[in-house]
Structures are given as C-alpha cells and as structure tokens.
C-alpha cells in the first residue's frame, strides 16, 4: 500500500497531504510528530481512503497566515474535507491531532461520522507533569517499546521542529477549558484510545473526556505508551477497524468473524 503526496489549494493557502487506500474516506489528523504512515495507517487503508493532512508548519511546510489557533486548524480541516474529500467522512485524531479533531467535531460535527481520538492532547490537568526536554527521556515517556521505532523515522531536528510547531496553535496551557465546556455538543460516536503506559497524557484526561462526551467508548491498549501505533500496532488496528466497521456493535464479541479489519477485508 503506497501513499501519494498531494497539495490542496485552500482559501488560506496550500496544504500538503498524503492519501492512500480505497474505500470509505477517513481524515487522519496527525500527532505532534507529524505524518507517519504506521502499520495501523496501512491497515486502515485496506478498507478506507485515508487522507493525512499535514498541519501547516509541520514536516518542513510553511505556516499559513490566519491559521494559528486550534479552532483555526479545525476550520482548515473543515475546508479540507469540503475541498478534497467532498463527502461526510470518519475522523481520526492522534494526540495533537485529537485536540484538533475535538474542535472539528464541536464546530462541524455534521461533516464527520465516527471519530477516533488516540491519546488526545488538550485535556491535561494542571498537575500533570510536563514532557522531558532530553531526547532520551522523551523517548522513554513516549514509547513502551522504543525498539519498535522504525529505523527510517524522521531525523531528530525535524521531530524537534514539529514539537515546536505545536506551540504555534496553542498557548501551552495543558487544559483547553473552552473546548471542555463544549464537549457535550458533540453528538458523534467517539472511540477514545489510550495506552496503559502513556507517560505524556494521563489517564485522568481520558476519564474527563469520557465523562463529557455523550456517545463515547474508552479503551485502554495494554503495554502501549503515547506512541501506541508503534508500541502495539496490531491491537490498535484491530480496535480501530472493528469500531469503524461495526460502530457501537464493536462491543459485541462475534468470535473470528469479528476480527476487525480482517473480517472487513474478507467481506
């Protein structure tokens, strides 16, 4: 499965994105690490057309004038859906992208169907520890299995720039109280996914989110940290694809025939 890099011309300027796969469209909003076509993304592309929009300022791209808030990013994502996808789609937001996804759901929930929030940022309590600046310590916090990080991963300077780019869109406050106050407006079916070893986003953030969202499910992925697509790709794929294929029916164990994306691909 290969992904193609494309450019969308939007009202605020050009936005790069990667697209791959075939099937029902899904918009993937990346984490602070930028675009990564991980194994779960490849698995997703078996049954979906996956649109991975590059947040302006990430992965060597330029910022766009007038797009410098989380709400602004959500509006940009809305325009991206209108322009490049052209129909209602499912939505995945991972960490920083999960924060944007929540704003998108609040502001334009009618444009998306089911939503998956993977360890979304934006809901950290004031007592939550900050992320370490030392690269080695940072890796320890982010991954339960750093040995699984692909050798072709991005250079550290790009990753560092990406992390800094997040600051372009928010003040650094750990809790987006304006967003929390509006979470109850989201009517979409939401799956919240969190790693049991996540050292970046505390479980209390997920519990808060679960308590505020009207139609949501929270699932912990065992032995995964914040980089859960790297730490436990099979578990994440199974969960995400089963949820996307079956909606709320993913709660039911159908045995072998419900083995998530495998079942879908056989159908």
């Amino acid at each position, binding site marked *: 499965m290969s992904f193609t890099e494309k450019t969308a011309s939007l009202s605020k300027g050009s936005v790069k994105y990667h697209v791959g796969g075939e099937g029902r469209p899904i918009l993937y909003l990346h984490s602070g690490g930028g675009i990564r076509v991980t194994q779960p993304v490849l698995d997703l592309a078996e049954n979906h057309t996956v649109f991975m929009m590059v947040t302006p300022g990430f992965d060597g791209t330029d910022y766009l004038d007038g797009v410098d808030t989380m709400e602004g990013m959500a509006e940009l994502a809305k325009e991206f859906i209108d322009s490049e996808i052209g129909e209602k789609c499912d939505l995945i937001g991972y960490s920083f992208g999960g924060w944007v996804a929540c704003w998108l759901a609040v502001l334009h929930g009618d444009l998306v169907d089911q939503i998956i929030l993977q360890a979304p940022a934006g809901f950290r309590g004031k007592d939550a520890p900050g992320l370490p600046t030392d690269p080695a310590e940072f890796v320890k916090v982010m991954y339960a299995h750093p040995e699984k990080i692909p050798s072709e991963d991005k250079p550290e300077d790009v990753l560092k720039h990406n992390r800094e780019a997040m600051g372009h869109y928010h003040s650094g406050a750990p809790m987006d109280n304006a967003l929390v106050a509006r979470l109850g407006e989201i009517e979409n079916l939401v799956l919240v996914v969190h790693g049991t070893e996540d050292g970046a986003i505390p479980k209390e953030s997920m519990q808060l989110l679960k*308590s505020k969202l009207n139609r949501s499910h*929270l699932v912990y992925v*065992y032995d995964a940290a914040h980089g859960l697509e790297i730490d436990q790709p099979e578990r994440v794929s199974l969960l995400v694809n089963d949820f996307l294929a079956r909606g709320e029916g993913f709660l039911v164990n159908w045995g072998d025939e419900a083995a998530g994306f495998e079942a879908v691909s056989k159908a």
Partner: protein
Amino acid sequence: MEFAYFHLMPYTASPETTKDWPVPNHRFDPEIGHELYTTYIDNMAYAEECGFDWVGCNEHHMSPFGMMANPNIIGASLIQRTKKIKIAMVGNLIPLLNPLRVAEEYAMLDVLSGGRLIAGMFRGIPHEYVAYNVSPSESYDRLLEATQLIIKAWTEPEPFGWEGEFYQYRAVSIWPRPIQKPHPRIIMSGSSKRSAEIAGQFGAMFGIAQIKTMENARELIDAYKNSAREHGWEPKPSDILVGLSLAISEDADEAKEMLTGGRKFFAEVLGGGIRTAQQLVLHKSRYYDDEMKGKFIDARKAAMISVDDLIEAGTALCGTPEQVVEQLRYVESQLGHGVTNINMKTGNIPDEAITAGMKMFQERVMPAFQNGR
C-alpha cells in the same frame, strides 16, 4: 507482628498413596466432604477468637491437596462468621481466571466484609496450569496483564475497554466497586525472584507461602525490596508475609510427632498427584527458569528432611510455646517480616489438636510479639 491463620482445607479421608494426575475424584466422598467443610470453616472462624489478624484462603484444583477450588466461596462464608479479622485471599490464581470475575468477586468480598479483604494476586503452582489448560509459559505475562486489568476495573470511574495480549474487553464497569480506596490491599506471591520483583513493581505486599531455606527467603525479600525501591517506594515489615508450619504442644516430643506424621501424609497422600503434574510442567515448559529448577529440586529434598532439621533451619515452628517463641524470634531476626502466616493443618494433623494449639499460640506465643500490633 501480625499473625495470619492459613488453611489448605485438605481432603484427609482418603489415605491411599497416589501419583496419579489428576487424582481420581471417586475417592472423594461428598458426605465426608460436607463434614470437613464444616469443621474447617469452624476452625478458620475460630482464628478471630484466637487473636489472629488475618484468616487466609487459597485456590487449588483437582486433588485432595485442598478443597478450595474457589476460595472466594470460603471467604464469603468466613465473612458471615467473623467481625474484625481480615479476609486474605492468598490467593486467586490470576493467570488461570477471568480477571473481571476476580475483580468482581474480590469487590463483593470487600463490600460484604466492610473493607476487610486482602486481595491476593497469585500465580499458582504448576499443576494448576495443567488443570485449567493454560500454558505455564504464559504464567508471568498473564499475571502482569491481569493484575493491571483488575486494578483498572476497581479504580476507573468511567466505563472502559481493554485491548491486551491475553484479555480483550470492550465495556467494563464492575458492580459493586470495592470499599477500600483506592483499592483493596494487594498481596502477591514471592516464590521466585521474578514474582518478588513483580510484587515490588505493583506496590503490593509480598508473601512467601512456605519458606524453603532462610537464605532463599532472604534473597527473595531482597529482590522484592530492590524492585520496590526501583519503583519509588520503601516496603515496611508489615508488607512482608512469611509462611511457616506450626505444631505446638506442652510436650515438645508430641509436637514433633504431630508434625512428622502430618508431613508424611502430606508428602505421600496429598502431594503425590500434584508432584506428577509438576514434573510434567518442569520438563515441557519454561515455567521454571534454571534457577527455579534447582530450587524446586532443593525443595523436593527439603520435604524429606526431619522436623528437627526444619526447626534448626528456621523453616518450621514446632515444640512447646516457649520453644516456638524462640524459634519465631529467630526467623523474625533473620527476615525482618511483619506478618507471620501460620499453617497448622499440615497433612492429617487432628483438628482437635489444632484447635487446642491455636489457643495455646494465642495465650503464650502472641504476647511475646505484641510490639507494633
């Protein structure tokens, strides 16, 4: 020092020696079993009257070794018969069970007892894996994952799912929740170095059900303490439980005779079948690492040594009350533990002698260890 009263609930009415696994259950007479349950539950409830701080139940399968296939049932019975004593499940064999069922039943026990549960997360001995058709090679990994899941089930305020290696649940929200906060006190087995390290990792109490040698017990306790420190906490003596067999009488020779006879019955009748299963596991899995294989063989040899040697080594308490005080002081000085787990029903030692011994232990041994109680 705190004292726990532990009972295996052995089926003693079928004295034939056997090496069969599983032990044929035609040897179990349900009518006699009914009488034994009554006797044993009376005896365990009596532990409260005799000043014990805990009463301990445990899980074993498919042999006369123990009649507590589900110790939580016995725990529930004891809760109705007692007021203050802690109800210690030492334990449920977590890798063999549905973790959510354990979380639910333990929460029930905690609520039923008003917060008296001590929740054992034990790995179990090899033959249990044969009994429940679970790979012994997975024992540690299942223990780790299931224990995390159980704690999650007790402490999560919102419904949640779990996508794990061995366990997958999409919607969990147990009723009832436990009384103790953040959750019931946990005890884990320290029968191997890795088990001891896991106990330290979880911030749990640590228990050696039956010490083999003093040196081995010290090594395990050190492993536990080192692991705890690596995980940012310092165990207290009250976090460490050490198990010892006890035979007590006004006549030291009578006590030795009791323990000798009980050990012989235990080795030849109660333990025959399970040793066969243990051998199967030893030869065909990674359940024991090389270090443990050696220790298992050492333990087999230990089963053959005399009661005098056991006393000398500090691995059993036997004799007059005064001698038992001296023996226990020695063990305490060597291991620095804060909870002694007393097993008086070794093999077929008569229940009347045990009841008398419990009172004697309360009146003439416990007072010597009142500090800190």
